């Protein structure tokens, strides 16, 4: 047996020293000069056995270098797809080593074969668990990652404990690995994932000191919660601001994770929106295109959120796009062709969002010599979108040069793009006409695909600008003779029909086609021939009558296309019916339609574009269709902006109502309880001067219908007192999820806090603290129910601007359990309403 050197390798350094032992065992014939070896030599039967022998001697092998080489050989076979699972037992013995290189390789082997050999993999659980407690954080992390990657349901019971320990490890690497481990556990066994309550822990870990742990927690939360109604991690103001304040700590891809949360966040008010944008602005100066694009999306979303009206929004988006223009183009200029392609796709959608924004940089979109074709195509498609009064002649000239490119697709696209400039009509007066002139010249160009494209382009332009007819009609009859491509031919015939009043010989040009009807293969050509003849017939009946008759005869006999056959028959019957044909056939024969400013219906994709902007910077932008159309249902994620309502929120109308799906009617329990069970308590919660706690608990400001409630006994005890500390600890002791939010409308906005306090005091609602902020009043109140002894802890605020509305968050501290809490709170609200209303 001899080792076959792999053909792809040139002579290379010998991997194994020509040590007798090794040489013999890999099968090198003795006495032969060392054979150039490689990990990828072709496998022979029995080599696995030889490896087994090598591994058996592994323990006695002294040279660490050779030890590594033996394991490497096994891994090499594994990656080639050779089954080396027979060596499992031997490999597991090698795991007990201090050499991390070997350890890593064995773990790689283990993870690869665990799924197919579960019983064997279970054997090494002990070792893995032991390694999870190793002194070296690298080993701990490695063992944990492998343990979680085994992908064996029966391992779940062994995973959760080390995982939990890892999450509080003092080394960030282990914590980070642990967080990813949670995700693996989630996919392995959702039930035990729920039991362990990892979601709460993950929310806690968003405040980890290490940024990579935070980023992983975001990724995992987003994936785990992707099927909830939030479509990912729940965001509130506290979390968002916490993350944004640390934005400088995150490295490139971690930063992207944070930035991708921003579009889903609704800022409390316009100021906060601007602050966030200012905070993110430096990211635009970096060379990381992932981060820049994520920032662009965040900016556009902020513009949506904080703009008051549609005009404001458009204007703000204009500003955003003009801010990001230069950085984007620099990224395109400095990136690889792949980066260029994906960036240009994003730019294309931005241009359509804000027409005119990239116009002055149109030269950046000229194609370059060495670019791959997909980049060239894309650039040619973007160019017409940039045309305006000033640059249209330049762009048209440039496109004109591309028409005769060696690549036929480039030349086709160039013609189409010119037509698009003419049809969009933003090239100024005379632009469409000069383009039409060019097209007519191209009809004579003697290059088949160019002629065909030019003819098609002219049909589009005539639909838009009927006044171009004289220009277009000049050489049609001649062109008809040599355009061969079916689409081009059909276009020419259409043009002949359209310009029948200007071209005298039009009927005779078509006559030849009618005579040779049987040789026409393409249905589109036949269709256009029928239509054109009909149009000509109404213009010049005497010349056309017989011809049309012949054509209708042939077409009604034609069985190649049902559609064509039926049309011909319809025309025939209509004409024969004796009714005034002009009125019946008006839609077909009408030639002088003028679209003016309107766009073609088929080009009107405003709705699609709006949908795509919602999904900016995703695959949807690349493919040009909404994600529901190409992402499998199990991977679809709803895009929802959060939080639904802000405590800081004045007025209430500044947010585009369309973005927040507010429940249509006031819900009986209008709050978060079920939606955000997992939001970890925020440390500042207990501080009475912070309103962070409220952030978690505010639902829609919808007032519960004041209904005639059943007359249950409810009265507030008077003379209740409580210390500040007591208040704080009680407030913190009740989960924010159990808080109940409501609102009371006031007759007018109070002038001072005292006004409210004294009114409430009359109804035994005691004020703990109150304060005045620039935009609102803040109250910390409490009350005690006389019969059940329930304590109500109330935090509330009244916005100074807009509607006089008191928003109230109530937590009920009760000894007797939580039954009837909602009802009790309803009563309390009624009391307050009475006091203030």
């Amino acid at each position: 047996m001899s080792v076959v050197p792999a053909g792809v390798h040139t002579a290379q350094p010998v991997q194994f020293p020509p040590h007798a032992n090794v040489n013999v065992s890999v099968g090198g014939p003795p006495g032969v000069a060392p054979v150039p070896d490689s990990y990828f030599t072709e496998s022979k039967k029995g080599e696995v056995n030889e490896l087994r022998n090598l591994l058996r001697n592994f323990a006695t092998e002294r040279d660490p270098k050779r030890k590594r080489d033996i394991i490497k050989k096994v891994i090499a076979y594994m990656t080639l797809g050779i089954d080396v699972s027979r060596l499992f037992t031997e490999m597991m013995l090698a795991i007990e080593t201090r050499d991390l290189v070997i350890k890593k390789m064995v773990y790689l082997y283990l993870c690869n074969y665990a799924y197919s050999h579960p019983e064997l993999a279970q054997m090494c659980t002990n070792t893995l668990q032991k390694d999870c407690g190793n002194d070296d954080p690298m080993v701990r992390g490695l063992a944990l990652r492998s343990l979680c990657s085994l992908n064996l349901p029966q391992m779940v019971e062994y995973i959760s404990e080390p995982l939990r320990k890892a999450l509080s490890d003092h080394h960030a690497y282990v914590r980070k690995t642990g967080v990813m481990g949670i995700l693996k556990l989630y996919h392995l066994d959702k039930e035990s994932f729920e039991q362990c309550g990892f979601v709460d822990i993950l929310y806690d870990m968003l405040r980890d000191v290490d940024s990579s742990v935070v980023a992983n927690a975001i990724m995992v939360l987003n994936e785990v919660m992707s099927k909830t109604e939030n479509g990912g991690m729940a965001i509130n103001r506290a979390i968002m601001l916490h993350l944004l304040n640390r934005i400088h700590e995150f490295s490139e891809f971690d930063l992207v994770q944070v930035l991708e949360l921003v579009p889903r966040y609704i800022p409390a008010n316009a100021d906060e929106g601007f602050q966030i944008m200012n905070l993110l602005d430096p990211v635009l100066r970096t060379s990381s295109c992932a981060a820049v694009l994520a920032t662009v999306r965040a900016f556009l979303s902020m513009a949506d959120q904080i703009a008051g009206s549609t005009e404001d929004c458009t204007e703000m988006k204009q500003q955003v796009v003009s801010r990001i223009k230069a950085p984007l183009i620099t990224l395109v200029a400095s990136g690889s062709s792949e980066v260029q392609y994906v960036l240009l796709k994003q730019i294309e959608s931005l241009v359509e969002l804000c027409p005119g924004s990239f116009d002055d940089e149109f030269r950046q979109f000229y194609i370059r010599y060495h670019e791959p074709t997909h980049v060239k195509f894309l650039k040619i498609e973007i160019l017409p979108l940039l045309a305006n009064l000033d640059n249209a002649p330049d762009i048209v000239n440039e496109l004109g040069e591309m028409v005769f490119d060696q690549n036929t697709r480039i030349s086709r696209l160039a013609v189409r793009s010119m037509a698009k400039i003419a049809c969009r009509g933003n090239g100024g007066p005379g632009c469409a006409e000069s383009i039409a002139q060019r097209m007519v010249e191209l009809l004579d160009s003697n290059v088949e695909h160019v002629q065909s494209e030019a003819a098609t382009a002219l049909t589009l332009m005539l639909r838009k600008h009927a006044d171009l007819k004289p220009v277009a009609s000049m050489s049609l009859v001649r062109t008809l003779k040599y355009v061969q491509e079916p689409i081009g031919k059909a276009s020419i015939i259409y043009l002949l029909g359209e310009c029948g009043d200007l071209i005298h010989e039009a009927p005779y040009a078509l006559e030849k086609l009618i005579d040779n009807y049987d040789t026409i293969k393409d249905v589109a050509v036949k269709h256009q021939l029928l239509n054109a003849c009909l149009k000509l017939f109404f213009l010049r009946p005497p010349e056309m009558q017989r011809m049309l008759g012949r054509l209708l005869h042939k077409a009604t006999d034609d069985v190649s296309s049902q559609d064509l056959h039926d049309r011909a028959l319809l025309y025939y019957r209509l004409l024969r019916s004796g009714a005034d044909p002009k009125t019946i056939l008006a839609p077909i024969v009408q030639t002088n339609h003028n679209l003016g400013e309107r766009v073609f219906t088929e080009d009107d994709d405003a709705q699609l574009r709006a949908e795509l902007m919602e999904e900016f910077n995703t695959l949807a932008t690349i493919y040009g269709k909404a994600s529901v159309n190409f992402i499998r249902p199990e991977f679809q994620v709803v895009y929802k902006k959060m939080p639904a309502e802000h405590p800081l929120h004045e007025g209430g109308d500044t947010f585009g109502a369309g973005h927040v799906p507010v429940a249509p009617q006031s819900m009986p329990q209008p709050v978060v309880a079920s939606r955000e069970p997992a939001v970890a308590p925020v440390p500042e919660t207990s501080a009475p001067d912070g309103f962070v706690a409220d952030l978690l608990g505010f639902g829609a400001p919808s007032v519960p219908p004041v209904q005639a409630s059943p007359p249950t006994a409810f009265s507030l005890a008077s003379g209740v007192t409580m210390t500040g500390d007591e208040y704080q600890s009680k407030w913190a002791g009740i989960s924010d999820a159990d808080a109940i939010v409501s609102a009371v409308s006031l007759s007018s906005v109070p002038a001072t806090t005292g006004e409210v306090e004294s009114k409430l005091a009359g109804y035994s609602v005691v004020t703990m603290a109150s304060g005045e902020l620039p935009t609102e009043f803040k109250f910390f109140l409490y009350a005690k129910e006389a019969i059940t002894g329930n304590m109500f802890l109330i935090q509330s605020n009244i916005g100074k601007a807009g509607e006089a509305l008191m928003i109230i968050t109530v937590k009920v501290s009760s000894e007797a359990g939580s039954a009837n809490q909602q009802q009790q709170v309803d009563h309390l609200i009624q009391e307050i309403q009475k006091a203030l209303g």
Partner: protein
Amino acid sequence: MISNFFVLSPRGDTIIAKQYRNYREGGTGAHERSHTEAFFRKIKFWDEMNLTPGGEETSSDQQKSGEKQQKTGDAPPVFMMPDGLSYLHVKRNGLIFGCAAASNVSAVTIIDLLSTVARVFKDYCGTLSEEAIRKNFILLYELLDEMLDYGYPQITRTSTLKSCVYNEPIVVENIGSTSNMINPKTASANSVHKPVISSVNANGRKTDSNANQKNEIFVDILERLNVLFSANGYVLNSTIDGCIQMKSYLAGNPELRLALNEDLIIGKKESGTYGSVNVDDINFNDCVNLNEFESARTLTFVPPEGEFVVLNYRLTGDFNTPFRIFPSIEEVDSKTLEITILIRAEMPQNHFGANVSVELPLPKCTNVAHCNVISSPGTGYTNAEFVRSEGKILWTMKKLPGGTEQTMKAKVSLSQACTTQIRREVGPINLNFEIPMYNVSKLQVRYLRIAESMAGYTPYRWVRYVTQSNSYVCRL
């Protein structure tokens, strides 16, 4: 989030593959392998008529492309495969770094991630080639494990990765890069191709062996020119894409200060005083501290290990084009064309264009073309010939000193009478060149210093200026 990652050789063999998610019940690796094969076929025989990369092809389309089996365009980096996954890829040195994604990910992020993986592989192997990857596959799997976990990016910086990667690279000799441009002045020094990693001792613990490490830092100021001339020599479009690129082997990772021209102006609107450097826009690596940039045009940063781009800049508008091209075509008789191209090097005399090559596409009906170079002194070896397989004249010059000019006359005989259509098939002329130690924008590194003065610490600084053609085209 990606569901797998793979590296394919230029022939489509899977060199490295890693599966992160399996969406099929009982799916096996073998199944996935067949998917990368299908993916490779799709790239190889990309049908340009397939307009929308995301579109499901009609069955007839598929049949057609199956029959033709020929490449009619370049595959875009993102497209959908019949298995419902989006495949994204980048090509580096002929190798394909690819992955698949099931959810609606950001394509920009994934492409960026793939490029980063490729860059890190290069940092660790020294060079990026099929051989280097095959030899270092253990190291690369180790790297991958640290860079991506369960399909999410983890540690992506070369320097951070160093602390958790233990395999040593096997250095592959760089067998001449594939491009024909090897010039001692512009090709990177051999030491640039050395891997970044430190060695691991027998116990599997890192040794900080800086003893044998030379304190070096390589700084390249690279400018790529895009110029488009009309037939009469008028500049239609001109931009410079520039970058400052570094590769640091400095011991102890000291903080560096890099100063640019003091009169550097950023932004198009401000018109600078005469002679100042005015760039349209500039962006920086995220490790760069810009506190002193506005005031003194000075950057401070701790250079990450491996190759990295400190900043990218972009400049449009008028600059002195280093070469001018003056073409002319004469119709000697109906079947013969005489094409003359004069190239004048307009940069200062102490500089020269290296590896200048001129490409001139000729009509398809060209029978034969005789080229004749009228050489002027000082130019090295020049050669011009008609390459039939590519249908163009290739004119190469080893050297073209500043202030000189070169003329080539080509007599082209056609198989049929020349029409305007055939005339149009001539051109455009494309010029490839590089100019060592010269940059067009006049952006300069005033100094590069170690921020804190350390006695006895004398790093070697290799600063190079290189100007290259990116798209230097003259129409006919």
